[in-house]
């Protein structure tokens, strides 16, 4: 080993010398030289590379333009043009007449608006989300056929939800989460940035006279009443308001205190804002020693700007009241969570635009206005109090730091294009000469970061680890700008700093809090205590300890009712997931069918349990090779014997059934199906003059360009299957009795894939998520679930990347064949199930579109977008929160997905292929030689297994 290192070290030294001499001539390699223009399928990328079109720059451009006070209202029904020929105008909907009904067929609608004076205006949309569709409504506005700025495409109109049932209890006395439903309600929405990057609504420049205003939605269903062009009034300060109170002679209310429990919310903006429970303290209302009590709302889900929850309060007399909230913000260490308070839809005064709730892991009662409480004038009767997530004081800081991250990432990418990810320590690459503006960018960003650090200190009122992180970054940038020759040695640290910063930004952008109750009280009343006394707490925890011996927290299902069939279901998932399935069974399945379901959370050991006679009737989320394995030994029920099996199997793509079929029988139905998509960085590819490759030929042409720029390409080794399928090859022949790896297509495909790794030195192992984030791999093929992960947790590259179907092979008719492998998970039913029909009912129910979609939605509400469910049900897939373009892309690819059949001994196929692949890539023997050798072993094993099971 040592001698080998020595050999390489001397080699490295020589290399260094050579490289240093050569480097003065290195420049970018652009695609022009390689004549990519010839590629007829490539889709070009349009990318606003310099971020020229931001709202900041737009405001700057119009900073001296006046904001006239004129107001124009246009009825939505008086539209000028639309792409939806069948668009309808409803005569009346929920109290309003002549409203425009947007549907999933409506992409855009345009209005002509006559504005008396040119100037900057707010635009308000009067809409009703209706109750027909569930996803939020994305909205893009174009004025006079032009997108005024990039952020104008980011507005989000929320839907309105409420609890449709009261809090009920199960038969063990635990509270059940109330169900939620959508509500029809007319709302006024000022177009604003949906990401919360700006606290104020957008101002748009409108010409004098006629303007065309075009709204484009993500094809969601909702009703629209009117567009209002006006000036949003500026909120008065509390000082002015309290002066008003005096002049109007408002009096303080007397001895009154009322608590409004958080879980009894009136309405909320999202289905994820469901009621929650906290059993940490007896003072949380209500609480119980051993049983679950729904007693809070919010939590980790109530975090993104724009999400709101509202409550109804009732006051007995006209007068001035103070407001308080019992909350816990145990999420963002050292930071505030911010909320905007609205009473009856209006912000009463500017101070409550940004209520800062400091970090504390304990429950707290905060009186708004703290020591000198704000007084709110409330008339006798009911009022709606709502709290909305806002980034508040952090808004500008986050926006500015996001811009910093963008420029730093851009610089990083330019640097590695010259030096690679691991630059040589002893080479001076002259980055400052090769990258224009390198030093200036670093200095500018350093100044900006320092400024934000000072601001953060000011907001938080103290120096913390956050400011230290920012200061470190700034000093590193300053020093790198001064001594550009040190960049190569500090590159890793630089990259780490960027990712720390972007992770931190992501954290600050989330503003979760839990709420136990709101308090409305007369100024003379004392606010309730947040915590129980020590004695009470001690009693509570002692009781909890003793009840823990009698209460079984592991039973997930309800107690079964006698005289009705019970299906025992094993689920190979986490507790959260099983909890969701249990709720759905209680809500939708058992009441309708009268079948009890006993859900158990078990990982693995199905076989052993079945052997011992303790196995389940049905198992969910089983690996795709298991069904045939179990079935061959007579453990599974052939599902195709059920009458309506055909209809059920229509729910899935035929490829998802392939691994479960053997000799005309089918032993499982799929629950999930995963397949690969191509992910790419728009900025990097457009910088290199590359487009999105549609065929392998185009893909191969990109490789040298990307590699010359010291970046890489991410390809999974399973690409082998893709190549086989695209060339019309197959895995097995002779009724699955032998592999087809001796056929020419397969040998060629195998040769091609191993060559990719040998010739281009592609990495066998990489973390796609990180590499795409840093741009080190600007194009890669990965499972499509990466999409949700990237969109959920890589904010700094938002809009810089995209997903497309994988490259294909052009067939004889000039069509691109994008075939690839899809891997499903299975639901199976065991032979020893007592109630087979009931079990089948359950399987049918679980795999139905309605249930799969709801399961996916609820799962996402717990795990966030990163936990998006890869359902195999194609109808349910469309109901998950993908946008139209993503659905199109994915469906396009899904149509090409194929399944790999399973056969006795097919575990050996994967094994043999992996071995043949590794051996070839390790440089031992040719691909054909290795494939042939292992193919023999695979076929021996398959033949042996066929003999074992006596299958002819």
């Amino acid at each position, binding site marked *: *080993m040592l001698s080998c*290192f020595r050999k*390489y*070290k001397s080699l*490295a*030294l020589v*290399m*260094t010398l050579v490289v240093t001499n050569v480097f003065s001539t290195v420049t970018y390699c652009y695609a022009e030289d390689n004549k990519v223009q010839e590629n007829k399928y490539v889709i070009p990328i349009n990318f606003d590379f310099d971020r020229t079109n931001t709202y900041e720059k737009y405001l700057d451009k119009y900073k001296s333009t006046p904001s006239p006070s004129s107001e124009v209202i246009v009825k939505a029904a008086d539209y000028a043009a639309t792409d939806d020929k069948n668009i309808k105008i409803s005569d009346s909907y929920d109290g309003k007449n002549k409203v425009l009904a947007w549907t999933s067929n409506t992409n855009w609608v345009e209005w002509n608006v006559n504005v008396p004076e040119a100037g900057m205006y707010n635009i308000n949309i009067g809409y009703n989300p209706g109750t027909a569709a569930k996803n939020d409504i994305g909205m893009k506005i174009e004025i006079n056929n032009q997108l005024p700025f990039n952020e104008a495409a980011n507005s989000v109109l929320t839907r309105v939800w409420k609890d449709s049932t009261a809090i009920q209890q199960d038969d063990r006395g635990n509270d059940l989460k109330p169900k939620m439903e959508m509500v029809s309600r007319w709302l006024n929405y000022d177009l604003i940035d949906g990401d919360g990057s700006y606290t104020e609504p957008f101002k748009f420049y409108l010409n004098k006279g006629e303007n065309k205003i075009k709204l484009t939605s993500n094809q969601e269903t909702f009703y629209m009443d009117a567009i209002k062009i006006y000036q949003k009034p500026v909120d008065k300060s509390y000082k002015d308001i309290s002066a008003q109170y005096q002049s109007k002679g408002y009096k303080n209310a007397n001895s009154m205190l009322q608590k409004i429990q958080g879980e009894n919310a009136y309405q909320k903006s999202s289905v994820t804002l469901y009621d929650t429970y906290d059993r940490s303290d007896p003072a949380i209302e209500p609480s119980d020693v051993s049983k679950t009590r729904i007693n809070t709302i919010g939590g980790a889900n109530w975090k993104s700007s724009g999400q709101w929850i509202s409550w109804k309060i009732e006051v007995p007399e006209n007068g001035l009241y103070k407001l308080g909230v019992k909350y816990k913000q145990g999420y963002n260490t050292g930071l505030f969570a911010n909320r905007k308070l609205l009473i009856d839809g209006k912000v009463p005064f500017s101070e409550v635009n940004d209520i800062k709730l400091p970090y504390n892991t304990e429950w707290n009662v905060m009186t708004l206005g703290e020591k000198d409480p704000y007084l709110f004038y409330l008339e006798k009767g009911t009022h709606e109090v709502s709290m909305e997530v806002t980034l508040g004081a952090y808004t500008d800081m986050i926006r500015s730091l996001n811009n910093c991250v963008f420029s730093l990432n851009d610089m990083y990418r330019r640097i590695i294009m010259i030096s690679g*990810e*691991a630059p*040589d*320590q002893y080479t001076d690459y002259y980055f400052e000469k090769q990258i224009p503006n390198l030093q200036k960018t670093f200095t500018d960003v350093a100044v900006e970061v320092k400024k934000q650090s000072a601001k953060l200190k000011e907001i938080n009122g103290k120096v913390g680890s956050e400011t230290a992180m920012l200061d470190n970054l700034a000093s590193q940038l300053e020093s790198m700008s001064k001594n550009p020759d040190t960049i190569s040695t500090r590159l890793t640290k630089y990259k780490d700093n960027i990712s720390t910063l972007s992770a931190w930004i992501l954290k600050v952008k989330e503003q979760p809090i839990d709420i136990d109750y709101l308090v409305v009280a007369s100024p003379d009343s004392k606010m309730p205590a947040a915590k129980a006394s020590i004695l009470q707490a001690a009693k509570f925890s002692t009781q909890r300890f003793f009840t823990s011996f009698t209460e079984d927290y592991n039973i997930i299902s309800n107690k079964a009712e006698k005289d009705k069939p019970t299906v025992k279901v094993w689920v190979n998932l986490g507790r959260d997931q099983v909890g969701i399935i249990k709720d759905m069974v209680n809500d939708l399945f058992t009441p309708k069918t009268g079948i009890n379901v006993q859900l158990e959370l078990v990982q693995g050991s199905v*076989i*052993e349990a*079945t*052997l011992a006679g303790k196995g389940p009737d049905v198992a969910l989320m089983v690996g795709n090779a298991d069904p045939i*394995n*179990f079935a061959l*030994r*007579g*453990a599974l029920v052939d599902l195709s014997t059920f009458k309506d099996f055909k209809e059920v199997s229509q729910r899935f793509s035929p490829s998802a059934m392939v691994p479960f079929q053997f000799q005309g029988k089918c032993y499982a139905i799929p629950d999930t199906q995963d397949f690969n998509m191509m992910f790419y960085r728009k900025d990097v590819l457009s910088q290199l003059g590359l487009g999105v490759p549609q065929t392998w030929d185009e893909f191969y042409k990109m490789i040298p360009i990307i590699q010359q720029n010291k970046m890489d390409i991410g390809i999974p080794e399973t690409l082998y299957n893709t190549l086989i399928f695209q060339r019309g090859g197959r895995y097995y022949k002779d009724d699955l009795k032998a592999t087809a790896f001796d056929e020419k297509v397969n040998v060629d495909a195998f040769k091609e894939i191993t060559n990719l790794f040998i010739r281009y*030195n592609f*990495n*066998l*192992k*990489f*973390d796609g998520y990180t590499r795409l984030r840093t741009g080190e791999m600007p194009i890669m093929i990965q499972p499509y679930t990466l999409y949700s992960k990237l969109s959920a947790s890589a904010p700094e590259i938002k809009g810089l990347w995209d997903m497309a179907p994988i490259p294909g092979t052009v067939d004889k008719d000039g069509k691109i064949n994008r075939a690839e492998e899809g891997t499903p998970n299975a639901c199976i039913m065991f032979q020893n199930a007592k109630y087979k029909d009931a079990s089948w009912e359950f399987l049918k129910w679980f795999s139905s579109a309605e249930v799969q979609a709801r399961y996916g939605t609820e799962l996402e509400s717990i795990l966030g977008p990163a936990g998006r469910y890869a359902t195999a049900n194609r109808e349910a897939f469309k109901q998950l929160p993908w946008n139209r373009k993503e659905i199109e892309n994915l469906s396009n690819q899904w149509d090409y997905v194929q399944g790999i059949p399973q056969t006795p*001994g097919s*575990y050996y196929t994967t*094994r043999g292929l*992996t*071995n043949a692949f*590794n*051996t070839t*890539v*390790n440089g031992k023997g040719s691909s054909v030689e290795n494939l042939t050798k292992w193919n023999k072993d695979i076929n021996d094993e398959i033949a042996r*297994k066929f003999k*074992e099971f006596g299958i002819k």
Partner: protein
Amino acid sequence: MQTQVVKVPEAPIYRKKSLWAKIKENKISYAMVAPFMILFTIFTVIPVIASCVLGFTYFNMLQWPKWIGLLNYQRLFLEDDIFLIAIKNTLIFAFVTGPLSYILCFVFAWFINELPRKLRVFMTVVFYAPSLAGSMMAIWLIVFSSDQVGYLNAFLIQYGFRTEPIYWTTNPQYMMTIAIVVQLWSSLGTSFLSFIAGFKNVDPVYYEAGAIDGIKNRFQELVYITIPGMKGIMLFGAVMQIASSFAVGTLTQELFGFPSTEYAVHTVINHIFDYGHVRYEMGYASAIAFLLTVVMVITKNVITKVLKPD
């Protein structure tokens, strides 16, 4: 005539006491071993017997076992090429890492024994911890990751030894070495602890006597007093280390995946797993397992013979 009846004194009858009676007599002792014996029987004796019996059957875990006589053994010895690889690898582990780790245990225990008390406790934890934390293997996954940002690869690339990552866990050229290193790292277990205890057990009187008799240095002390003084523990350690080397399996599976490339680090335990849990041929797997047990028992006896304490 009067016959004189000579009364021959009855010979004392050494009637064997019944087992039951014996148990009754020593009931307290039996009661004290009972908890262990019950568990030992249920979880060790019965499974060993069961695997011996199952070794003569075809058993696929779902259907009732079918008697097939010696067919499994016939296949094992005559047809199974991979079993030979597994045997080879297992023997490498048994006879390379076994003795090596035995020596390491002893040497480290000796060093640590020389340390002041507080430091000794700390160091004991440091060395013993790896064998406690089974899933600590994950750290080696990062070190030997085939990714270019894996610790070792990143180091080699950073300092110019390599330009491309080495596929540590899929290239058979490196796999065995890595497996041995990691196995040694995690093998300072029970025998290491017992050595430390053993050192403490040697009566200090001997050292004083030795000093008077002319022992000059610590090494002589070790050879002439300490080792003879803890022969029993030395034997125990040897058996433990070699036995645990025979049972290497989860380690290779976690580090190199299952099965490893070209079966480069495929051990007998992996082979059992392969047949038991991948191919569902429990009968065959039992045959292998039983064979492994027999080999381990024989090895144990050989070790005992070699290191026989007085």
